[in-house]
């Protein structure tokens, strides 16, 4: 190597160095500001949940005091909920309704979504527009005649009106599945058809396995939808406490018995817990599902 003076690889312009340091400093401040905001907002988002859990562990006198932290911790509240409130029965009812509703939604929404996205036929786009329109239709418009029908069939009060309609597919689920099915290349279907696959085989053996994430999202949304539903149970089962689901039970029971706040919060926490656990287990499916139903056409 020569001993020549100027090597662009190692030469450092002092001014550029200062500029770089300024930029680093600026970036650092910027990131501190971002994280501070994010942490602050996270604390606010988490605070109500913290208060619910904290209150659920207090004793009764503490819930009407000014303290924010349980002292002592009354874990027994979580047992008392099951003794004072028919919590187990509500949970069983909710699990039943949500699980059957989920099964019904999936098996009745996959086939329509399939023919609406992967087969060409006349009237397809009209059918799809009708489905979109029914999604926008306010439930109040159809609520009364549906109620009258169920009541004539002797299904009120019973869990049937909360389960059976799920077996008649839901516009939202069809929409979500269709969005996903459309993104599977047509060539896959063509190849299978050339190999002698019938449409039914094609749907069950090829499309369904490929669309697992979307089907999982539909199942999840449907399950959570029933789990969180309040209006349906309010119409159909409120008269019979044996049929109460968690949502209606919590609200109606509180109205009738004025349960202490700590037990109420313990019950609320137990009501939230499964949903939060499900969320942590399936976050990816969940967030992709929400995104899929957004505006991304």
């Amino acid at each position, binding site marked *: 190597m020569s001993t020549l003076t100027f090597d662009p690889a190692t030469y450092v312009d002092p001014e550029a160095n200062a500029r770089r340091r300024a930029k680093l400093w600026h970036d650092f401040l910027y990131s501190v500001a971002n994280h501070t905001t994010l942490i602050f907002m996270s604390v606010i988002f988490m605070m109500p949940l913290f208060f619910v859990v904290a209150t659920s562990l207090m004793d009764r006198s503490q819930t009407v005091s000014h303290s924010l932290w349980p002292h002592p911790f009354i874990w027994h509240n979580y047992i008392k909920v099951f003794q004072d409130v028919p919590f187990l029965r509500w949970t069983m009812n909710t699990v039943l309704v949500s699980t059957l509703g989920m099964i019904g939604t999936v098996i009745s929404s996959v086939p329509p979504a399939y023919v609406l996205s992967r087969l060409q036929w006349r009237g397809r786009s009209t059918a799809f527009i009708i489905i979109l329109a029914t999604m926008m239709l*306010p*439930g*109040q418009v159809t609520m*009364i005649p549906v109620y009258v029908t169920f009541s004539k069939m002797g299904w009120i009060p019973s869990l049937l009106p909360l389960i059976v309609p799920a077996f008649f597919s839901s516009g939202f689920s069809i929409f979500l599945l269709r969005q996903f099915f459309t993104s599977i290349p047509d060539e896959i279907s063509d190849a299978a058809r050339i190999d002698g696959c019938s449409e039914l085989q094609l749907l069950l053996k090829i499309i369904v396995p490929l669309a697992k994430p979307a089907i999982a999202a539909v199942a999840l949304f449907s399950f959570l939808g029933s789990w*969180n539903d309040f209006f349906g149970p309010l*119409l159909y089962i409120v008269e019979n406490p044996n049929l109460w689901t968690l949502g209606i039970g919590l609200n109606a029971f*509180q109205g009738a018995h004025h349960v202490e706040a700590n037990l109420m919060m313990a019950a609320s926490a137990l009501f939230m817990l499964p*949903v939060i656990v499900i969320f942590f287990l399936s976050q990816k499916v969940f967030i992709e599902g929400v995104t899929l139903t*957004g*505006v991304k056409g």
Partner: protein
Amino acid sequence: MGKSLVPSRKRGTSGPMQPRKKLKVPWVFILLCLSPWILGFLLFTAYPMIASFYQSFTKFNLIESPKWIGLANYKRMFSDDPDFWIAMRNTIWISVISIPLRIAFATFAAWILTKPKKGMKFYRTLFFLPAMVPTVAASMSFTYIFNPSYGPINNFLQHIGIKNPPFWFLDPVWSKWGLILLGLWGIGDTMIIYLAGLLDVPRSLYEAASLEGANSWQSFRYITLPLITPVIFFSGVTGIIGSFQYFTQAYVAAGQVNDYSHSMYFYATHVYFSAFRAYEMGYASALAWVLLVITLLCTMVILKTQKRWVHYPNGSLFK
């Protein structure tokens, strides 16, 4: 979509023998697949719509069969039902305040989430979590947390020196703000859609802007905002549809605190009370149809204005 990635169909067939046979449409299969939806549509949408439209011109109490009374139900709404106007005022109030607030908050929350180099997923989980909480549990918890005398929020506010914090759900002036906070707390699912929109904005645009010397507000205002107008449009439409059906939160909160002043009495509440407390099914049907017409009108107004402010980079569903 994905189609451009794979060779076009026309080229695929090998040999000169025959043009590709057109696929026969398997009509039986199509009808079978659609049958759950068709039946559901007839049973739970088409028939009920016709029936409720008819019932809206009748007096109907579930026990006796509907009696035709012409437009009386519709007239009653506008001239002889003070509760209708209370519900209407409350609903309009909450739409006007909460829809823009929700849009602004969701945009901000999603925007700040895109900022950090690391940890976005962690914060996103925390921001999203409240949206998972069942509505009834959330509403009951909020009415307790915001209890004016011993709820933790007012305890906290007094700790930091606010002498007379609001009475929240117990005060007709503040109760709707309590509901709005409850709604903002559960912003998660809306926020996720905004986040997806923001992450879709090409990085190169921001880099170009920063080379031109744009500060972060300018790049937000002139790059981010225009590119997420489709998302804003979408949430505006669903927001309006949603606010006329706003029910559970208000019903639960009102039940918890005995809302004598009807400050949390909304349009959907009025439909429910008319139908299932007063058993005036005909009148409730008329209310429901007015709700449908209002929703349609609002949606059409936004649809009409969308050309002026919504930017679609490559076309969209709503075009």
